[in-house]
């Protein structure tokens, strides 16, 4: 692995979270559209989403969306201002902080419900 610094990891995480969001949206659109085949098939597929990995995955998706959105703002600042490039490292640590705080918040909200099986 090339020993790049913050910028490299910001880029890799942006790609990874982007792909995760794309996969989530595709799954979402496909499973919602199953309603055209009737309620029975729709419910059969959606019942599968009660599986624990899907429920925990939702926390990861929430974190990924926040990271992608915040890093997107960082990229806009970098693309339009010289200051953004000069402070890209600090901006990235800000992005990480917001993403982590948000993910922890979502986990606190969601985990008790997962544990209770609601």
């Amino acid at each position: 692995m090339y020993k790049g610094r913050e910028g490299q990891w910001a880029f890799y995480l942006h790609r990874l979270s982007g792909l995760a969001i794309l996969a989530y949206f595709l799954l979402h659109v496909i499973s919602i559209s199953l309603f055209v085949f009737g309620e029975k098939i729709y419910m059969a597929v959606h019942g599968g989403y009660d599986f624990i990995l899907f429920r925990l995955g939702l926390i990861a998706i929430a974190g990924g969306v926040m990271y992608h959105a915040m890093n997107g703002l960082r990229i806009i600042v970098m693309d339009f201002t010289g200051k953004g490039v000069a402070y890209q490292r600090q901006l990235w640590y800000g992005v990480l902080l917001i993403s982590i705080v948000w993910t922890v918040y979502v986990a606190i909200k969601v985990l008790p419900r997962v544990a209770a099986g609601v």
Partner: protein
Amino acid sequence: MNINVKILRFDPEKDRKQHWETYQVEASPGDRVLDVINHVKWYIDPSLTFRRSCAHGICGSDAMLINGRNRLACKTLLQDVVKDGGTITAEPIRGLKVEKDLLVDMEPFFDAYRSIMPYFINDNPAPAAERLQSPEDAERMDHGSNCILCACCTTSCPIFWVNGSYIGPAAIVQAHRFIFDTRDAATQQRLNVMNQNTGVWRCRTAYNCTEACPRDIPITQLIEEVKRAVMYQQA
């Protein structure tokens, strides 16, 4: 101090793929990485192949991947990358075809360089003396004209590794040098090259180029300036 020099070797006549070889070398902390690689070639294994020329950080021949980062072997001191008894690794720069050991085919890199027309273009008749420029205008080219075409930046770029048709940071830095030269008249043509789908928009701002540049050129900053120049000329 005693160090291990671990080099990623490849002989196209014998090897199917690259493999690591380690050599024990005695050196002092103030030696450069190039010195120990030269030692390996001169006293241990003369078949070791790599480029070097001036050995003083100007010709840009000995760019290699040292301890996981692109650097010039002649500008990297051992004390900055290894301790006594430690190991340094040297690999060929990535994204270009390895011809032998640390030597890669630089032709695609120079093709990209040529594509940005890296020469002064102005068909207006030259004045009797010089084409004058203010000191402020000349400063715009300070960073770009520092480039020595070593390829440290282009071959540290994650986009270039997977998409060899990307023109790469080095060519964009060179383009920047002419685009922002007030005496040059081919700005439009160069911005058009930058606007192609192999051009400046492939940059995803991973900053590896800026970290790798042995001339301390703020490469990502220059690339962003070119992006803005392309965008605003279209608006």
